[in-house]
Every structure is written in C-alpha cells, then in structure tokens.
C-alpha cells in the first residue's frame, strides 16, 4: 500500500519510493530511505497533506498527498 492508504499512529516500514528522480532525491535527503520506519501523525483537512514522523530521528515532515502516494509502505512488525 502507499502512504496515503496506510493507517495513522502505526509504525510503517518504507518498502520503496517510486516517482521521478527530483522527488526521490528530495525525500532521500530528508531521511526517507527504503527500510526506514515512519509513522503518520496527523493530516490536514479536506484531503490535506500528511504529517509524517521519521521514527529514528524524530523529524517531522509534511508531505502532500501526490508525493505521499509515491511512498510505498507496509506495517512494521516488532514491538510498537
């Protein structure tokens, strides 16, 4: 599933980041790498952007839905 379909408040593991090189590079430099864990924290109203926390560094990043749809994730197993 992609990030827009993922549940909120659960640890998610990034499986892959699709999309163009520009967007990918931007996400990589902000700390979104395949294998890393992230969590959806909040979202804007009216299909607004997603607020995503990178579990390991604790950084928060706001991501528009168009871009979030390019981040493929699965629910992370292990202790929550």
């Amino acid at each position, binding site marked *: 599933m992609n990030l827009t379909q993922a549940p909120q408040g659960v640890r998610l593991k990034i499986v892959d980041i699709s999309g163009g090189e520009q967007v990918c590079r931007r996400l990589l430099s902000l700390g979104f*790498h395949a294998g890393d864990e992230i969590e959806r924290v909040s979202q*804007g109203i009216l299909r607004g952007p997603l*607020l995503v926390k990178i579990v*390991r560094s604790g950084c928060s990043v*706001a991501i528009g839905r168009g871009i979030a749809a390019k981040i493929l994730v699965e629910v992370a197993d292990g202790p929550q």
Partner: protein
Amino acid sequence: MVPNNAPFVIFIGQPNCGKSTLFNAIAGHKAQTSNFPGTTVKHTHSKVNIGGRVLNIIDLPGTYSLSPADPAEKVALTHLFQETPDLVVNVVDASILGRSLELTLELLEMELPMVVALNMTDLAENKGITVDFQKLSALLGVPVIPTIARRGKGIQELFEATLKCLDGKCFGKHLKWSGDVEEEIQRLGESLPEGFSCVANKRFTAIKMIESGHLFCNEFLEDINPDLKKSLDGVRANLERKRRMPVYEVIAAERHHLSQKIFEESSRVRRGKAIGWQERLDGLIMHPVLGYGILFIVFLSFFFLIFKVGSPLETLLLKPFTGLKAVLAAKLGGGLLFHIADGLLQGIGGGVAIVLPYFIPLLFLMAILEDVGYLARAGFLLDTFMHRIGLHGKSVSPFILGFGCNVPAIVSTRILESRRDRILTSLLIPFIPCSARTTIILALVAFYLGPLWALGFYAANVLLVAVLGRVLSLFMKEASPGLILEIPSLKIPSLKDVFFKIYLQLKSFVLFAWPLFVAGSVILGFIQSLHWDRAINAVLSPLVANVLGLPRELGVTLVFGFLRKELSLLMMLQALGAGYQNLLSVISRDQMIVFTVFVSFFIPCLSTFAILWKESGKKIAFVSAGLSISVAVIVSFLVRLLI
C-alpha cells in the same frame, strides 16, 4: 566579494540547524534568523577579528545535500565549489544527528579542512539524545565542538578550534563505504585523467559523476573523452544491477547507513521518554480540526493586539503634531515656506504617530511567531487551501513573509523547487498587504472607521489573492510538484533574538523608508505651493474622479505611491489639506475605502518591482505591474458600486 587575503571560513549545514544564529553570535547580529527551514536564501558575509586574526566568514543557505534541489541550495554550492574556502564550519543539528551527518560525510569527501559545530545540544538532551562529541570527533577525524548558538555557548571553543584548524589544517578521515560500491568508485576515480577532477578531488568527482547524470562535467564527456564515458556508464550500470535501485539511491543509501552507524556509535538515546510539552502542544497545533481553530485565533488575536496597542498610542502621539500645525499656519501664513514646513511636519509626524505605534507591535508578534516555529505549521495546515489556488504549503512561508515586507518575500521564493511555483508566488506576493500597508490600514481605516472595517478589508484581500492565484494557475499548465516541508521542533523564542530582529527592521525603516516619506511630503508641499499638483490631478482625474469617484486632489498622491504604497495613503491628508481630526469631513467613509483598496493594489512599490525584475526577469516585473493596475482598477470600481 571583499578583495583581501584574510582566510575565508564558510558556515554550511542543513536547513534550520542554526547556522545564522551561530553566525550572528560570532559576527554580531547581521543575518536574519527564524525557526523555518530556508530562512537564509543568499549568503551573508562578514569580517571578524578573532584572537587578533581577521577572518572572512560567510553564512550560506542551508542545504540538505551537495546535490542542489532549489536555487537557495545552489547558492550554497556555488560558494563551496568555486571559491575553495580555507575552512568549512559544518553546523550540525545534534537533535537530528543521524540525518545531519549525511551532509557532513559529503563534506568530508571533498577533503576540505573542517570543524563540526554540534549545535542545539540542549534540544538533543531534551529529546533524550546524548552525543559523545569526543567519540564523534574520533570517528570523523575532525574537531567537533558542542554549541548552543542561541545562548552563545561553545562559541569561544569554536573560535579556538577554528584558529587551530586554519593553521594545522584539520582534514577528516576517509570513511569507506560497502566493499562493492567502494571498489567501483575507486576504479572510476583511478581512471580519471590527471587534472580532470572538476570538483575537489578524484574520489569526490567520481562519486558526483556516478550520482548525478546531469553533472556539468558529464555532459561533454561523450565528446571529450569517450573512453571515460564508457567506463562511467559501465560503473553506473553495474551498481544499478547489483543493488536493484537507481544509482543515486545507491549512493544516498551508502551515506545514510554510514551516518546512522556513526550516529549510533557516538550517541546514547534514552528510549520511551516523551518530549513532553513540545509533543503535546504539537498534537494540538497540528490537529486536523483544532489546529484550524488555533490558526484562526492566532491570526485574529495578532490583528487585534496590534490594533489595541497601536490606536491609543496613535491618538496620544497625533495631538502634539496637530497643535504644531496650527502654530505653523499662524506664523508662516500660506506661502511656500508654510507648505514646505507642513510637508516636513507631515512626514515626521506620519512616521512617529501613524507608522511606529503599529509597526513595532507587528514586528514583535511576527518575530515571535517565526521563532516559535509556527510558520511551517501554518504551511502544513494551509496546504489544502494553497492547492485550491494552484500552489502548495511551501509557498505559505513566502506569503507570510510578505505580510512583513514584499521584497524579502519575493527573494524567499528561492526555497521553492520549481520555477512555476516561484513565478506564481512572486506574482501573488505584491497583493499581500505588507507591514507598511497594514500599518496604514490600521492607522487610517481601523482608526477612523473601526477595526471591523480593517478586518473586513484584510479578509477581502486574502480572498482576492486566492481568486487571483486560481486564475493565474490556469495559465500555468505545468503541475506543481507538491509539498515536502520539514516541520522544525517548537522552540521558546529568545527575547534577545526577537529584539534584535525588530531592531534590524526598524533600522531599515528609519534609514530608508522614513527619509523617503519625509522627502515625499516636502516635495508635495513644494508642488502644492507652486500649484503644480493641479496639472497632475487634471491628468489623473478621469481615473481618480470619474472611475473611482474620489476627490481629484488625490491624484498627485498616486505618483508618490509608486515609491512606496503607504505614501499615497499617508499623503492623503496633506493633499486634501485636512488635519487628522477633520479627515472625515473632506472625504467620505466610502471614498476612503475605495481609495485604500485602489492604493493597496495599484502597482508594486519600486523596491518590489526592482526585486521582481532581478529575481524573475523584466517580463515578470512588467506582467506584475500590469496585473496590479488592472486588478486595482477593476476591484476598486466594483467596491465603489457595491458600497
């Protein structure tokens, strides 16, 4: 650049890691700071004397990596690559060390002498992260100095390390990547002919050639060295096949893993401890429902606070000036001298009594909002609405800056990645009421007609920007790439920083805007005494009197409005020959509204026009001017019909 032989020291780091705060702590306050990634969009240069040695220090825009994505980041890289600094001070946010080190690793690859300033160690401690800076220094091979720039901690130690490294040259370690990737890089590096290193050294050149298909030295490679091109393509293909991902991702993953490893080896993270108030407060501010309520309350109280502070002060300060005017009239009669003295008085009085009572509280509240870190959060909340007007949340920051002054707002569009977004945002910014216009709106509209009128004007203004954005984005077919915006941690603003920011802005008002205003008023007085204003008014009368239904005497103020929009409004009194007390006897409430609307939009002020020209080109500057004039005429005519 200053021609001298003092060594160049550059400050570089990821966005919002506190480079500018650190720079200010060293250079005395010079650079703008705030808690929003991308506040610095151009370099700030300063000469400082440290321990008897003169250094050129340069504060650069933040960059996440050495592969630039937006124009502000490109500024950083130009300095780094072309000017070969004598020392790099890499500022690192200790609270997100793992990610910040990725840039550090890239800088190490460049083999420049370097000192790491491990900043925001207090914030890291709050998050439960303790960094062993000595261990980190051993791992990287360069000095690591813990600092808290906001409180001036660690600055002295940083000075000492800087001086030591300038003499002793602190080069970092060669940190190796995974075997197979390292092998490919070395192979390519060794096959580079002598003197080919287009950036820094052979290994770094090889990495950049592999990582980026669009690097400048790759583009001509086919022609100048076909063999090298072949081996480069071979290396790229090999890596992609082995790792099953695009080659730039392979390199990024290598740096990512290495920096995570260094982070884990040098830091202790206590788990389970929540960050307390920050996290709870963030939960409220960014809440999908409550967040919008809070946003609304923040802006409403922003507005009313400024008005409540400003209007009693205005009343108080206007009194002596009104009295003085009567004295002048009695003493000087109605001749040339009176008109010039009156102009002088209007100019000085307008500044003291009308602008300052609102301007200072506005700057104060703006600075607090910026430093707390609310702007990025507003960007997140407003992204949805920005999409409706063809933009996204990252443009919120230039827009909000625009409420301060349009000029830095247009410069700050450099944080946007795509040209389409930059142009669209730059075209909309001149319609945002800047602090000078807000002051006038508060001092004239709210003061004479009541705060609700001013608030209504503001709401209508925001609506206008939205409609305009929607219309303009119809002409810009290319889709916006979408929002990726880092949300910085909430911070308690330091009063010192806040006061300093107010000082910086007031200084530029007193040195630049006020003299212009006084001069404008004196010139208007002069023109009036010679009755030249009648000619100008006659020319503009079809527009001013016929279309807008205003007293034709106001025509002359529009000429001055091109210098600064608020001049037109401030000079209204002088042009009408009215005092502060009897203004409403010469102009009706409706006329005042129509005039305010027209003046607010009718043309970008001279500095805005100049910066538009510089940032986006002549065409955009003229498009913007044309757009402003047509919008002003149409909207104020509509307002005239409606009220």
